[in-house]
């Protein structure tokens, strides 16, 4: 009986361990890819990480995080790209991943924040002609995200950026943007930045903006 009990426990433990390994597998790959991504300083570096994110999303299409980072990296790179057409192509890919991500969980605050970020990146491709549609879309998603989780620091970071870039006479500028970045900073401080399943991007950029506001 003891042997049987031991065997059952062994099977249970092995099964649990196996499932744990399976669950960790995409996260380990994502963590590695994210390290590559954040360490990159050139288009080649970002694209290398971006390709990794895409492969991870292809391999684990039902993982919310896999689609999330594939969308995020494409959107981020679009802001580094200089060719407007290529920017839009990157954002088309980001939109595809966002759609897949939303099929898995659309009501997460991070889903909404990322959707807002992609909208802002769309606006940046052609600000003069896109402000009305895409800043509106961005704000709508940030508002929704606030209702889900008002303590998400990226909401306030993303709200601050357009205010920072908006000329003073239109109601923008450093003074207007600063409270947003300060609020984001305080919230960033309460959150860890090691778990890939809980996005933590934006802290360094927020700090830099705050620095610019204090200049």
């Amino acid at each position: 009986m003891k042997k049987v009990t031991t065997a059952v426990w062994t099977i249970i433990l092995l099964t649990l361990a196996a499932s744990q390994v399976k669950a960790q597998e995409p996260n380990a790959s994502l963590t590695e890819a994210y390290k590559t991504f954040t360490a990159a300083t050139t288009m080649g570096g970002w694209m290398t990480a971006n390709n990794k994110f895409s492969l991870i999303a292809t391999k684990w299409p039902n993982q919310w995080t896999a689609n999330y980072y594939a969308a995020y990296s494409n959107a981020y790179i679009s802001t580094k790209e200089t060719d407007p057409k290529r920017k839009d192509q990157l954002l088309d890919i980001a939109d595809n991943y966002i759609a897949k991500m939303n099929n898995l969980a659309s009501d997460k605050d991070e889903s909404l924040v990322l959707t807002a970020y992609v909208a802002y990146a769309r606006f940046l491709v052609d600000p003069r002609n896109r402000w009305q549609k895409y800043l509106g879309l961005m704000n709508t998603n940030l508002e929704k995200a606030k209702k889900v989780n008002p303590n998400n620091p990226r909401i306030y970071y993303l709200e601050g950026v357009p205010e920072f870039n908006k000329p003073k006479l239109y109601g923008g500028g450093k003074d207007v943007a600063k409270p947003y970045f300060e609020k984001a900073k305080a919230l960033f401080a309460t959150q860890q930045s090691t778990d890939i399943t809980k996005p933590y991007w934006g802290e360094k950029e927020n700090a830099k903006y705050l620095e610019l506001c204090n200049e």
Partner: protein
Amino acid sequence: MTPAIFLRFWFVLQTTLIIGIKSASAQESTQSSTLTGAHAAAQTGTHAATQTSQYTLTGKILTDRGAPIPYASVSLKNSTDATTADSSGTFTLITNTRGSQTLLISAIGFKETEVPVTIGRTPSPTGNTPSSPRSPAPPPLIKLKPTASQLNPVVITAGTMEATDDRVLTIVKPVDVMSNASSTGDLVGAFQNFPGVQRNGGDETGLFVRGGDASETMMILDGTTVQDPFFSSVPGVGQRSRFNSFQVKGMSFSTGGYSARYGQALSSVLDLQSTDLPDKSTLSIGANIAGLMLAGGKRMTNSALEYSGSYSNFGPYYDLAKTNFHFYDKPQATDLSTRWIARTHTGGLFKLAVHYNHSTSGTDVIDPNDPDTTIAFGLHNDNLAVNSSFKTPLSNSLKLLTAAGFSTNKDDIGWGDTIFNRNDNRLQARTELTWHPATSLRITAGGEVQHYRYAQQFDTANNNFTETLSAAFVEGEYRPNSWFAIKPGFRTEYSAILRKGNAVPRFALAIKTGPYSQIGAATGIFYQTAGTQYLLLGYHPNFQKAVHYLVNYEWIQSSRSFRIEGYYKSYDQLVRENGVSYTPNPYRYDLGIVDNTGSGYAKGFDIFWRDKASIRNIDYWVTYSYVDTKRLYQNYLESATPDFVSTNNLNVILKYYSDRNHIFASAAYNYASGRPYYDPNAKSFLSEKAPDYQNVSVKISYLTNIKKMFAAFYANVDDVTGRRNILGYRYSPDGQTRSPILPPQYMSIFFGVYLSLTQFKKDEL
């Protein structure tokens, strides 16, 4: 200057991203890795198997034209082995997989491609052979096909310039049309800066396109014909359009060869699309030297109600700037409009707009019957226009558009002591079905019915006519690939008043010649019924006819664009008045024997150049149009260049924005060579020409905040140099004396302020 333009100013400057802090240097790093990262480090750069049976695959990713594609993703299908190509397209993939495999390659803007490979044994059948351990080979070349979006797919543009926000790459955007100094805030007036359009010195009303007169241009709003696009005409005084530029999101201006969806215009169609649902509720007010306005909108979940009202009195404006006409009753107008926009749960969009305008004026104008004297022209006008449209998808590949409109216009005119009344009404409906079974094919079929009535009383003469015009059309657009497109069309019309019909073909094509360039061509036959002056007097001549041929070349990048278009247009069956002597009087009653024996031609070319990048903070464009045209029509004595045509037209538009000083400035220079005028003493008909027309205008806006409200102060100065333009001459009946035809004003100043009450309300933290 519209509020939308003010709100867009600052975004013009935001062409760079500040959100990312890391800088992207030109230096590129090449990295080779695998998804798992297990084997890559030791093997990069080798072409041989290691003792642990690792293999290195190398290759180069190219476009189908041989240019390297940077940063492509290269992986082995059903494996975690992957790498990224470098900036020159070269990749190195290390794997310990062997045998027949599939290489999966993807790159942004290119179709994902699979390449069969055999690792470790013999070369693959594709020739894109990875190196084997014993036979290193030069890197194979792998070519990828671009996606449609990579190529900037070809767009049929011959004869048409679009100002739309829906496409990224267009020559102009709606905001560009209105934000230049010489537009004087008039939507249609702004099109005089476009290639192919005559510069109007201020004495004419309407758009004169490529040798055509104003009646040859039709204006469409959301699919319905605009019956009275301009304020009622006053002899010798050009009128502005009635369109509200706040509510226009897209404009498609065709100077020839236009779509089979439309007809009844020998030269041109201006197709306007109104704005969709606004993002949020707004409220704004404005005041200027000629009046006050209030506009706003209430946004609901799936609908919005917009409203606007204005009162204008041009007394102060005309008192400040001396006019070349005496206004014994200064123009005044009251304008009210409202729009309801609603989105259905199936994705359809419904729009209903109601616009009412009442205006009065009293002007001493040159008596067309006796140019030596003036006559009092008192005008009371009431105009009501209602139009609606509904666009909805019926299925994934089928869309429906329905549109309907009603308008009525009434002019009570005091012509000296004579009663002169005009009244017109139009009721119309249009339905279109668009079938879009694949991205390469779109077919639109539909029909329209226009029922309209004109009535006129001049002294004791009462005249009227009623017309019902029916039309059906079908038009296809086939784009078998990203570099070639054709658009054949067919249209048939029937006129109840003429009891005649017509059937015409239309055709356009475009061929991509490079990443940013294309050539295009268009042709078609266009019919138009005779002008109202003939129908009112009971004449029913046949349709007038024009045939268009045009070719163009277009090169568009995001910051610079160039376009040249050549055309030939033949006119046939133009209406003629036989057996009468010529008089330039548009109100003549003796029309002689009216038939369709007139004819003519127009040929020429138009050039457009725009540059937003060469000079910091400066956006400029230059248009030049050359037209050679002659026609024998109406009461002309012989074939001649009409008196509304300038052979050469040049427009230079310049815009500047200073963020530091919060100033937006725009300047325009317009040149038009002298127009022909009728001199009864000249040796030949319409052979004399007026002096060349030149005008410099400047618009300056200062943008600021007043108690958290966005405010814009603006001033527009026309004819800055004070040039005394003469647009032609009128002769007395005996030909002994003449008087110059002058613009309504020389130098003029218009100024005002705009306040947005809601635009910058900030969210609470």
